[in-house]
């Protein structure tokens, strides 16, 4: 075995190898991302019909965040599907690499998917409802990090369960509440900085927690 020059470098290499695998898989199967895109646009259309006349513009921004969280949930449910169906997580866990590298690689690929989905959702939102503001975009990026961090860990938990797709929304939604608050606040409040800071705090805290505890979720 080759010894790494710095320990961090081999960790980064592991993450890169795993992330490349995740992105390659999605490119090949091409089902999750189109589904997310279609889902988010359909949801926005539904929201038009769901908002009664006289609803404020601000309500639309709130609903955008609902759409984003549920679209993310859709993507997260598929995150470990190959690993679950073919017991592939065993293969990855057996490898000598740090298990948290699996988490990091998967979370990074989820962030990529979310950004792609939002690249479509935001123009659609701007078209159907209101223009998109810079703090809103910043909020979305920060929220993506938090969603991916927490969602990846919870998706790994759902892999081991009997309830599968049922379980992930139940585990995820309470943890998504602060993200919604941060995101909507960044989108509509007068002082978005506070909310962006809060999202940053959420990301930092939960990313560290997820990174540190992932090992325990996939091993015994």
């Amino acid at each position: 075995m080759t010894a790494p020059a710095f320990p961090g470098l081999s960790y980064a290499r592991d993450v890169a190898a795993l992330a490349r695998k995740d992105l390659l898989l999605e490119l090949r199967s091409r089902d999750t991302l189109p589904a997310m895109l279609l889902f988010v646009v359909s949801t926005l259309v539904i929201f038009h019909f769901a908002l009664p006349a006289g609803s404020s513009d601000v309500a639309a921004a709130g609903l955008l965040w609902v759409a984003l969280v549920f679209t993310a949930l859709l993507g997260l449910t598929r995150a470990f599907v190959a690993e679950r169906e073919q017991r592939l997580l065993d293969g990855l866990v057996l490898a000598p690499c740090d298990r948290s590298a699996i988490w990091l690689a998967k979370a990074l690929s989820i962030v990529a998917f979310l950004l792609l989905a939002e690249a479509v959702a935001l123009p659609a939102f701007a078209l159907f409802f209101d223009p998109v503001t810079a703090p809103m975009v910043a909020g979305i990026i920060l929220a993506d990090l938090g969603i991916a961090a927490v969602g990846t860990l919870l998706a790994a938990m759902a892999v081991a369960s009997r309830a599968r797709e049922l379980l992930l929304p139940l585990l995820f939604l309470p943890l998504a509440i602060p993200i919604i608050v941060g995101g909507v606040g960044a989108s509509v409040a007068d002082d978005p900085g506070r909310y962006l800071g809060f999202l940053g705090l959420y990301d930092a805290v939960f990313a560290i927690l997820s990174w540190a505890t992932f090992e325990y979720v996939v091993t015994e």
Partner: protein
Amino acid sequence: MTSSLRSNQAVLLAAAAFALLLGGLALAFYWVPQAPLEGFRQRIFYIHVPVALTAYACFGWGAWKALRLLWKRDRRYDLESYTAVHIGVIFGILTLVTGSIWARTSWGVWWSWGERQLVLFLVLFLFYCAYFMLRYSVEPGPRRAQMSAVYALFGVVLIPISFLAIRLAENFIHPVVFSRDVDENLTGSQAATFGVCLAGTLALAAALHVNELRGKRLDERLRELREALA
């Protein structure tokens, strides 16, 4: 290392809890002078807040045991963590109920989004219900123990983060914040009553915890013996 006590200590704990609670309730309803502004309904404060604080303590204790489980990789902590969370949820439900009653008697509504503590408990209630769903849907074993422990840690971290979120949310949700005619500072007798009630609820939670643990460990032991004989 474990939370189980000898049986006479457990009985003592239960007796202490009973005494403190009974005493605390008596103090709350008969001894402490009526709050001049709020009136009789203020007395529910002596139940509601201790119950809420006890729920936090249970979640914290559950998270501590969870941390020990992950640290030491010792599965005995799983049962302790689980029962602590379990009792925390019971107290959480009580918090929601007493809070709702208090809201009803104060303002005529059963729920108020302006009540931060109440909203926080609602979020936590959802979270810990999911904790039970998680446990229910995974086979008992080392994996379930570890996943529950990780989730319990997430829960305890969620408490301050959610509280912050609820405060921040008020700026754009603008919930109807009812005000209470509160007598701001606790007088000596009020503080004493509160102290006794809090000690009572904590003792009750501890007694329930110990009792449930003993029962479950006994079940485990019984099962082991049955299998050894089979």
